[in-house]
């Protein structure tokens, strides 16, 4: 049984429309991509969809009340909610450097949460 699926590549703003042909749960053909990342994305998206997550965490004693953070790799789409709930209640301490790991191995995904903004300590 051939299964043909159309998906939109989310790797970059071009948003290529990709056509994936599947047979017995295996990708046999991908068309429509304009770069290698598109082909890779299509194969992953139909069998094991993953996403990077960006969000914010509160900071105590910083020049801003919130720091923006992201996962340093992608996580299974099905784990997004679990990850967001796991971050609930976490409060960080200033100062924070961009790139600093603020939560390691979140939800046993092997992925870390890292800061994407530098927060200085607030001088009172």
């Amino acid at each position, binding site marked *: 049984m051939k299964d043909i699926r159309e*998906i*939109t*590549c*989310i*790797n*970059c*703003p071009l*948003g290529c*429309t990709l056509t994936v042909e599947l047979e017995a749960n295996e990708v046999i053909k991908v068309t429509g991509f304009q770069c290698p990342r598109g082909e890779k994305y299509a194969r992953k998206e139909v069998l094991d969809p993953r*996403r*990077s*997550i*960006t*969000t*914010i965490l*509160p900071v105590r004693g910083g020049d*801003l*009340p*919130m720091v*923006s953070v*992201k996962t340093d790799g992608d996580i299974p*789409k099905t784990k*997004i909610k679990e990850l*967001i709930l796991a971050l609930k209640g976490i409060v960080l301490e200033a100062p924070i450097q*961009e790139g600093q790991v603020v939560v390691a191995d979140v939800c046993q995904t092997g992925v870390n949460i890292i800061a*994407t*903004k*530098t927060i200085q300590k607030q001088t009172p």
Partner: protein
Amino acid sequence: MRKDIVVIGGGPAGLAAAISAYESGSTDVMIIEREQRLGGILNQCIHNGFGLHTFKQELTGPEYSERYLKRLSELPIDIKLDTMVIDVTPQKKVIAINSSDGILEIEAGAVILAMGCRERPRGALNIPGFRPSGIFSAGTAQKFVNIDGYMPGKEIVILGSGDIGLIMARRLTLEGAHVKMVLELLPYSGGLKRNIVQCLNDFAIPLKLSHTVTRIHGKDRVTGVTIAQVDSELKPIRKTEQYVACDTLLLSVGLIPENELSRKAGVAINLKTQGPFVSNTLETSVPGIFACGNVLHVHDLVDYVSEEAEMAGKYAADYVKSNESSATTVKIETQQGVRYSVPSTVNPDLIDKFLVIRFRVTEVFENHIVTVAFDDQVLQQRQKRILTPGEMEQVLLPKAWFLKHPDLKSIQIRIAKEESQ
């Protein structure tokens, strides 16, 4: 005070322009920023997708701006934060105020306008109803959530499918709100396709095309909205009206370049972009005043803002050295299907390797051809599977073509169904 170059605005355009002006030989550069931090809107755009073009890497907004801030910190460029420019004259005198210097009067050799854009407000939409709390532009809500950590509401309807609206649909969902739907007046989304996939589809948020809000309910706080489908003339169809309970309405209905200062300086404004007319050196109609980024025309990618701003910085530095305005000899004419182009005039002598013309189309075109002609002689035809007003397009014209056409008067760009001529 005298400065070679004054850059107004410290967002992505201002940062790239200032760095480039310095690196092009202007050592006396000042950036004036009204906020307490440089980086502009990038500070609140915590999502991914910046820098693929410039850094070949997917960065968040703050990370993208940090790259420029790092470079900036290595250069002796004057930075005035918390400082508001209140006037720019055609003679390039910049007047600014802040609480420590009082009034600053700066005689600038060249001025780079990099003030960005602002969101179209509710008042521009004529939606009937009271004025309860709970109505936000999407970018304001983004600032509340991402910078201050406040939630604007719990049950949310978003009007307009621009990128900020789509991004906020996901952000608010991740922060625990219930985003009920995104409504779009037009039959297609104004946002990038990738954002529809990863911000709406991933969270099963419905996108209702050809829909709008016809009434806002609630006196002190929004209690709901009436939505309706619209016909081909974008008029609401009464019998499709439906009540949707919500406590918050976000508006993501377009961006308008912020050109109050440009107008004061006497810069001619293109009514289609709401930004200045510029030459290929990014010089406005006033000699020595340059413009780049979203103040010039609203971009969808910051990477292109940086690229454009670098050019503005370089040409502004050249202007300060030579004190010569870019005498343009070629006009760009936008014809069928092309809403506007940047630049709108060209001095062929000042083209480096290529002339980049950026433009937007008037409507969605499938399987059409982008045609470029020199004095009505077709030189380039590019087949495009899809062209949409939401995505900026560009054509690259090699310098060699201009050398071959020394008497060129005008360049035509149009969208054609089949090969013409």
